[in-house]
């Protein structure tokens, strides 16, 4: 503090900060990126460990014997599914009842805001079937969920295994929590309907019939996806709605059982490698972590489990993957793995809370906790604060030198006098850019019918193209803004606007990163340089190009290509563009169907904020 209370030294510090502002910012940016890349380096990460006592020391035995029978049930299910041409509700009810479960159904219907072309659905009607295994001598206060989506083509083996496990679990005496076996139709929509019905909430305007049977508060859930009789590995999917993750102990539990039973397990479809000291090993870890970051940033549920997280239910999806590897795992082994996991979850005395909720995983056995990855983000946001200080002290010093010897009150008075033309010039672009944001949020859905009438496009295309059109139209904002202003923008005016915009961005990114680190980090990577360098005095064309390249929409475009690259499925530009369009439509659908917040966040806050910088560039 002595540093700052001594005016001389303070002045020295301020002048240092002012003089070296750009290099410091550059260093911070580099350091932030380097820190982030270092997170995947194995010696810097922690090994995962089981924190929950109730799941750690207690031993369970896995004895599930009936994998073959489960597969036969799955085939029977497939046959009935084919016959009915959808979910074989009656057959499922009968089969579950025969296994001694209390069986209930729930019907639901939902009309999408516009047709979903990926899954080819618009008016969705379906039925969920679930059976509750009542735990003996338990008062119906706690429950676990095992779900398998009933999708048109595949996943029959998962339903078969679910029914097989139900039959086996029913004959055991040790259950302390009710177990709900759920077969949901129309994957996420059905799951959303079921969860809303179970918790009697309605956040997305879906129609569902109320549930008849419940099992109390759900402690944990697993969703099962299997499409072949034998598998080579099991993939764990953690990313849920809005980038929420389940407690790390759930991942630990899965990993522990994979190790115990000897099943290959992956995360993000990537096996774990031991050669962390080689370049390829390191890049493998980076790929895995980047995939998680991209998936988390997208804010969409990457499996049926993703919707549970809103209700504070720890959930994950387990996917069976059948590749060309030699060693195969049969259904009995998967059944034993699930049995073990459920028995341990059954032993839980409290909800999973001991381990981390905020983490990244460069491999299944290593994790990066919030304390390690936050500095990377912090280094990026520090740039914003430095620029802030730079602008502020620049202004301040100029005023200060002008009114030296006067009281602080007078300085304030003077400064407000000087910036008074700036208030209007700040407010107008702020309001207009936010109105553009509101237009971007509302117009695509509103105008789809009109667009379909006037242009030869489908509804989905209409929505996406309207969104892009509104987005592009926003680039004309500076010219419109200037009409509202009396005269030319002053030097003070853009400084004040930049001050506000940088502060706005800092707060916005900070809040986003707290909720969804990946999204915040990706946005910071692109928007912080924009915020740092933009002034009206730099070459217009080049800067405008850079600004557009770093805008949220282009960030999304690059992310699409990058994501494909990471998944080792590179696409041509043409395909990438189509993929980009479908990603936009999916993002909008995610918001309206499940309440994902990424679309409104981008449309209502990030895009207007970026527009402010665009405004600054065209200030004169």
């Amino acid at each position: 503090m002595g540093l700052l209370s001594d005016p001389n030294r303070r002045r020295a510090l301020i002048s240092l900060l002012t003089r070296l502002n750009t290099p410091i910012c550059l260093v911070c940016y580099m350091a932030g990126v380097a820190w982030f890349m270092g997170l995947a380096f194995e010696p810097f990460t922690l090994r995962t460990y089981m924190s929950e006592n109730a799941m750690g020391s207690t031993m369970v035995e896995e004895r599930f014997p009936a994998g073959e029978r489960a597969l036969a049930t799955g085939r029977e299910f497939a046959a009935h599914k084919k016959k009915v041409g959808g979910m074989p509700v009656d057959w499922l009810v009968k089969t579950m009842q025969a296994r001694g479960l209390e069986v209930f159904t729930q019907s639901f219907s939902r009309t999408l805001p516009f047709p979903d072309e990926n899954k080819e659905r618009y008016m969705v009607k379906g039925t969920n079937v679930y059976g509750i295994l009542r735990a003996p001598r338990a008062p119906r206060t706690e429950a676990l969920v095992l779900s398998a989506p009933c999708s048109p083509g595949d996943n029959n083996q998962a339903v078969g295994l679910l029914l097989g496990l139900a039959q086996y679990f029913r004959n055991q005496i040790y259950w302390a929590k009710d177990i709900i076996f759920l077969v949901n139709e129309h994957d996420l929509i059905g799951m959303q309907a079921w969860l809303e019905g179970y918790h009697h909430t309605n956040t997305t305007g879906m129609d569902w019939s109320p549930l008849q049977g419940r099992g109390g508060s759900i402690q944990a859930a697993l969703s099962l996806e299997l499409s072949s009789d034998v598998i080579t590995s099991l993939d764990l999917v953690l990313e849920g709605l809005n980038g929420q993750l389940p407690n790390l102990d759930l991942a630990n539990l899965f990993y522990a059982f994979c190790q115990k039973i000897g099943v290959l397990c992956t995360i993000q479809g990537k096996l774990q490698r031991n050669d962390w000291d080689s370049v390829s090993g390191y890049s493998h870890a980076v790929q895995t972590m980047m995939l998680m970051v991209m998936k988390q940033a997208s804010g969409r549920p990457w499996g049926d489990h993703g919707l549970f997280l809103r209700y504070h239910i720890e959930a994950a999806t387990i996917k069976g993957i059948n590749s060309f590897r030699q060693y195969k795992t049969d259904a009995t082994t998967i059944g034993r793995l699930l049995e073990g996991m459920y028995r341990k979850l059954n032993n839980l005395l409290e909800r999973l809370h001991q381990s981390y909720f905020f983490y990244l995983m460069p491999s299944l056995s290593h994790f990066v906790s919030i304390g390690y990855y936050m500095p990377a983000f912090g280094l990026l946001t520090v740039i914003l604060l430095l620029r802030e200080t730079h602008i502020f002290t620049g202004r301040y010093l100029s005023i200060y030198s002008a009114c030296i010897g006067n009281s602080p009150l007078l300085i304030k008075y003077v400064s407000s006098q000087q910036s008074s033309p700036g208030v209007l010039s700040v407010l107008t672009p702020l309001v207009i850019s936010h109105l553009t944001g509101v237009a971007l949020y509302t117009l695509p859905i509103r105008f789809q019918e009109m667009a379909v009438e006037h242009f030869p496009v489908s509804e989905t295309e209409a929505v996406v193209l309207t969104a892009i059109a509104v987005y592009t139209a926003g680039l004309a904002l500076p010219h419109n803004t200037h009409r509202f202003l009396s005269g030319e923008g002053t030097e003070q005016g853009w400084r004040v606007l930049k001050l506000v915009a940088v502060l706005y961005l800092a707060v916005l990114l900070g809040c986003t990163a707290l909720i969804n680190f990946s999204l915040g980090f990706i946005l910071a990577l692109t928007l912080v340089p924009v915020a740092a360098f933009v002034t009206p005095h730099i070459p217009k064309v080049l800067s405008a190009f850079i600004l557009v390249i770093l805008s949220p929409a282009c960030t999304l475009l690059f992310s699409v290509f990058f994501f494909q690259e990471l998944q080792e499925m590179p696409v041509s530009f043409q395909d990438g563009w189509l993929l980009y369009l479908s990603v936009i439509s999916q993002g909008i659908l995610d918001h309206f169907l499940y309440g994902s917040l990424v679309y409104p966040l981008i449309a209502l806050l990030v895009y207007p904020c970026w527009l402010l910088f665009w405004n600054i560039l065209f200030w004169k």
Partner: protein
Amino acid sequence: MAAYRYGYSAVLFILCGLSVFLVTNGQETILTGDDGAAAVDSPQTVTETAEQTAEQPAVEERQWEVTEVEEASPDEAAADKQDASAPETLVPPSVPRPKDDFQEELVIRPLHSGDIYASFQFRTLWETDFMRGNKVSHYRLFPKSLGQVISKFSVRELHISFTQGYWRTMQWGQPFLPAPPGAELWVWFQDSVTDVDGTWKELTNVLSGIFCASLNFIDSTNTVQPSASFKPLGISNVTDHRFLRYATLPREIVCTENLTPWKKLLPCGTKSLQLTELPLFSLQAGLAVLLKSEKLFHSSFHSQAVHIRPVCEDWQCKTTSWELRQTLSVVFDLHTSGQGKREWSLFKMFSRTLTDACPLASSSKVYIDITDNPEGEQFELIPATPLLSQAVVLGDRRTFSVYDLTQQITFGAVRSLNLLIRWKSTEGDMLRPLLHGERYVAGYGLQTGEIHTLMYNNHPYRSFPVLLLDSVPWYLRLYIHTLTVTSKAKDNKPSYIHYQPSKDRVRPHLLEMLVQLPPNSVTEVTVQFERALLKWTEYTPDPNHGFYVGSSVLSSLVPSIVAMDTNSTQERPLFSSFFPCKEESSYFVRVYTEPLLVNLPTPDFSMPYNVICLTCTVVAVGYGSLYNLLTRSFQIEEPSLGLAKRIANIIRKMRGVPPL
């Protein structure tokens, strides 16, 4: 509110007065081939009896023997007035007629799901007076520990139950004795008690010791005084609910340590039996031999209870006696112990068979509910018994096969009774219970929530009133203005509401409502609540488990199933069936909903220190320096003057000349 209370007090009193007949409204015993007994019975019985006579003419001789015993022994399930008049024929004549009496019985009901429900009842009746200051010192059959409790704490009625599991009404029908999961205790005190709360506190602590349970956790924060739901079940002239205390502990886990003290209260329950002439291995006798803990807890539902109440000695009610009724209900699960075979035997259920009756018991019987199996097409009962009994249980006329353990003939040649029930068909549909309830918490997040209570009336055309009792802990702050009662999508105005708001850390919310349930409907009661933030010492050791809210209690007079059959002219003379109303037109039933587990906002108990340190540092360094930078006033530093100049300045000041 007061107007409502007066207006509907009549309904309440009828409702609660009839609650005396908790289990049964009456029982009539008929015997095959016994024309004399059948003559006094209802006409329906006549036809049945006639059928049975036709079926089993061969065993008529033996049945006459049994008849005498059957007539002589009192029936436990009968109403109180009938009970007390029974002569005790089984007590050896050498002993002077004691004033106490012990009966035991076991009812087994095969359920449609393939499960089996076994309910024990042990009743000790003692003609004595614990009150009026006379010290009772000689105990014979009545347990001394409970007798002392009654006299010390001036208890008029005491009902305590320990239950592990939840009774699945929709699968199992109504239980003989309903009980909520966990522990439930309700006590009526004598009106002579002045400090009811103090006595209650002491009593719970004493009972906690007797039953080896955590009843000492009952305090003012979970005790309520229901105004209408719990009325005395014995003879009583006190209905002022100031003398009533009701508490539940939904978290209580019931296990062998609760069973052992409960068994010790039985005259034939443990090895402390006084009959030395019996060999060592058979110190347990009668039905109590079946109470093996490893089997009783290998079940879907386990409930044990103790009920103490004063009852009339005879029908004129000149003298009163004390009744101690110990009950134990258990449901065995077909799937977990069935090995695929749909059959049950005493040995499979309890890993014991019956060999004798309790020598101290005046009556010892096993009843098997064969109502759904009149022709033996559902299941097969081995050994068969000719003795049948009919009783109206929970509004339904049920038929039971009776095995009298006091008769040697019951045990047959192998001198052991191992009842075997073998299912023949898996079909069969249970009549939907007329009333059942459900409860759950709606909403997400840790700030607010909503409690939904669903009450189902499955009667096709009759509506009936239900008294709902909700006791919610204070840390769920109920927003009572959000209370809604809807049935069939319409607002259903409760005719009586008694609401006592909670006081933080002192007492819970109490909500009692009388709601009319329309026929064939679901009535939903919702109330929103806010989750309170507890003080950090108030959290339990496992705060992330959640906090329990006890079951709601639905008490109701439900229209009888017997009165429900619309086509009642079958099998009955025409003169008896014109008016639909009959003597058992409605019956009292109490239904408990499931308890709730609610998560409260819980701090991360491992983190606060780190978080506080980190936050404080960040705020101090970051914010402090920024604040400093912004608000500090700037002054030009005066260069320090030399001594000579200062002196010169002073002189100049004195001279009135401006300083240098």
